[in-house]
């Protein structure tokens, strides 16, 4: 990915293991979670979730890319490992309907106006009609 971001594609089962390894090798002050970006690919029937991680002190940003099936969008939460994941996970849940297993703060109407959320619309899904 431009400019000079290394993209590492991993399976959803390995995500927590890799974040745990990062914590172990670099320490709590060795990196921070930049953001979580979810993208909808209805033609491929999947959701792509990118975890942007910036390594300190060089501030090199790497991307952990996970793809999960669109029919069953469930992935393990990393909130207990990295508390900074809270807004990213909650936002991805509210806008795309991805479920982060283990994140007890997920809820609809977190971000989307409540009248849209009540209709079960996930605005950033390509077929949402928004």
């Amino acid at each position, binding site marked *: *990915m*431009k*400019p000079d*971001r290394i993209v590492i594609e991993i399976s959803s089962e390995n995500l927590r293991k890799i974040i745990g390894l990062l914590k172990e090798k670099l320490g*709590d*002050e*060795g*990196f*921070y*979670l*930049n*953001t979580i*970006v979810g*993208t909808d690919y209805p033609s491929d029937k999947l959701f792509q979730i*990118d975890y*942007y991680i*910036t390594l*300190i*002190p*060089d*501030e*090199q*940003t790497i*991307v952990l890319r996970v793809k999960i099936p669109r029919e069953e969008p469930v992935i393990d939460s990393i909130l207990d490992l*990295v*508390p*900074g*994941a*809270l*807004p990213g996970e*909650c*936002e991805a849940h509210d*806008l795309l309907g991805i479920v982060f297993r283990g994140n007890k*703060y997920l*809820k609809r*109407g*977190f*971000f*989307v*106006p409540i009248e849209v959320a009540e209709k079960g619309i996930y*605005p*950033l899904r390509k077929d949402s009609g*928004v």
Partner: protein
Amino acid sequence: MAVDKIIEVPLVLEIPVGPQHPALHEPLLLKVYAEGEEIVKVEINTGYNHRGIEKLCEKRSFYKDIFLVGRVCGICNTVHADCFVRAVEEILGVTPSDRARYLRTLAQELERIHSHMLINAVMAEIVGYETLFMLIMRDRELIMKAKEILTGCRVLADYIMVGGVRRDIDDAKKEKILKILDKIEPKIKYYMKVFEEDVTITKRLVDVGIIEPKDVTLHSLVGPIARASNIHIDVRKSDKYDAYGEVPFEIVVRKEKDSWARMMVRWEEALVSLEICKYILENLPNDGKAVPDERRLPRRFPPGETFTRVEAPRGELTYYVKSDGKPNPYRVKIRTPSYNNIINTGFVYLEHSIADLPVILVSFDPCISCMERVVVIDLAEGSRKLVPLKKLASKG
């Protein structure tokens, strides 16, 4: 039946601070639970300013989006436009001239100075110095004037475009801006001294809202907040975008970790920004046109994706832009600094008194229109377990 258990319910105050509140200038609700004067839990509720900008970006063309992202935030509009435009330029393979890169840097640094002055003025007001607020805001107008000379507008500049900037400057304008910079420097140094030495300000700010370096990285806090806790991060140094690779400057870092350090980092950064602005004006390259011909810009967008970062006044701002070869972007994701800095900092307020709350919040430089989203929930780590009366009542 003998009584074998007594449940003592401590008196817990529930205080809503905001969304409309004289101490906060933007819509945000801090639901504070306090036992006596001590804060035991804070819920941060936002979502009063949600505009669905990411979805709107998908519905418009790349060129129209530049104007849209410039309106995510009023104060830091240039950095938003710069970050998005650089993402689009990476997709298109367009490189702006050196002169344009220098001018972009100049606009962003002027923006940083006036943003830092604004939040320091608000802090002065919060601790009770309304005159100091007025004085800092008066002198901030000088920087607004400099920005107007450069970009044509005081606030919303729409200065950055694909391939360059919208206006070039001549020698007369250069001299005018340099004169303003010379005029403002002693004023900033004076205000910095006030923040350093004034008894009331230091009493209100020192040792209030301490954030340990470990908590900074774990909670993804960025910008002056991270640098005030001795974390050396600055996108200008690491990504070397625009002219930051060629302009000499140092990252401002402090070790105190408290609200006072965060404000001092901002004052020191304002002085560093002044030096950057002077360097740019004195060393402005003449390698060609800074303003590209809009009619000759590419109309076809190749597929590709980019992730650009920029050091906004409040911290690291990132844009993810994905193109699938159509005129509109496939996905735009904006992660603003306040998004992390406000939502993830519920834990900082704990064990402080109610009076410290506005001070700590202002020291984070909250920008609600940037953050634009979300309702958050308890981050009360390490808080004591309390049973609020309300909850007990609801359970009968």
